[in-house]
């Protein structure tokens, strides 16, 4: 497998199959992308600028939404995207409960 893979046509993230240092310039989905963060084996980076609230796509399917604005080349993980499913912390109209803990 290539060291960087993109699994679906509408994907806005790529997956690294090797460790990459911050500052590396990598080729993915026809683009040259400068990685602004170090990306570990198995982790993802943004293929485009992604606005807060926008969907994150991998496998051509939605895997979550951006919780903050994400720039191309940034590490995409639990610090800047979140699941939209099974969020009991957001149930019953209490939108903030989970974020206060």
């Amino acid at each position, binding site marked *: 497998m290539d060291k960087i893979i993109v699994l679906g046509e509408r994907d806005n993230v790529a997956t690294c199959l090797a460790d990459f240092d911050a500052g590396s310039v990598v080729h993915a989905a026809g683009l040259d992308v400068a990685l602004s963060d170090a990306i570990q084996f198995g982790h993802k980076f943004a293929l485009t600028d992604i606005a807060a609230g926008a969907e994150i796509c991998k496998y051509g399917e939605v*895997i979550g939404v951006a919780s903050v604005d994400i720039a191309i080349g940034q590490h995409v993980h639990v610090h800047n995207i979140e699941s939209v499913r099974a969020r*009991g912390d957001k149930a019953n109209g209490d939108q903030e409960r*989970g974020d206060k803990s």
Partner: protein
Amino acid sequence: MTETFLGFPRPDGRVGVRNQVAILSAMDNTNPSAERIAGIVAGTIVISTPFGRTQIGDDFEMTMKTLTGIGAHPNIAAVLVLGLSLDSAKPLADRIRPSGKPVEVLGLQEAGSTLALTTEGARIAADLVVQASEQSRQACPFSDLTIAVECGGSDTTSGLASNPTVGRFADRFIDSGGTIILSEPAEFMGAEHLLAARAENPEDADKIYAMVQWFEDEAKRNGVDMRGINPTPDNIAGGLSTLEEKSLGAIAKGGTRPITQVIGYAEPPTKSGLVIMDTPSAACESMTGLVGGGAQIIIFSTGRGNAIGAPVAPTIKITGNPHTAKSMPENIDVDVSAIISDGENLNVASERLWIEVMKIAAGKITRAEVLKEDQLSVSRFGPSV
């Protein structure tokens, strides 16, 4: 071409890939005696539960149904059931008897003491093992074989390498007449629409949505943010960011064939093809349900490394993670990390898995079997009273 595997035909028409005698403790208080008997008699395995006393209603029935399914499992040649008294052990033994295999029962209070129970139990178990050893393997069609697919300790490589390899195996096995069980519907979340679209009948599509909805509602009802629980910390360290991402990788191990049936925990499938079983995502609990439902083999895909196997059903560990393949080779049966590190084709990897599964069906011992990495854990849904 008729493809076959070598198995032990049982009186109820099912076929085992192993030929062991189970020492089945029906309740917590006879577990030590079951362990002693198994320590004395070669060829036996212990099936036990930390519960079994004063359980009620659906919760008790779930335990009984699961232990019955495991006792009647075709990989088990004969069963010795233990209980505090004959009265408390007999109901379970009676439910296993329709399988047609030898079933013996002992009560601690009737035996007199735990050492007397151990002596009497070891004598009976030894006879059962000697009898079982006369049975031999015969060529049987794949329609007699049910293989469950499971994953644990998932990471990015699970969705890219090991699960797609298992998925290709599943498609080929189903096309050859076999049955594959895919479980853990909480880990369909975010991918359930893809599975529901493959259900052969609309009721099963509705059931798939309902099973996933149940887990989602439970998380909400408990005020829980699923992010703290699933994906787990090791999943996250491995690069999985959300449950949806994990699910999309997890369902790859079910291949691409139509879903023929949706069944409950520890229920045996009645159709061949791809079957969905409703189990929790905890691997031991899920595998216990799969064994209770009669799966003879489990293929367990792991990324970061999860070594646990099921009791009774040989559990084949497959990883696509080069680090895991290197760090825990004694726990891994099939290493497909070359997909990631060396560009191995998924079809080639799947062929290697096929060959290994056939060897294990015919008697080759898995890593989890030889290291006794097994844990039985029956789902519970209510308190004991």
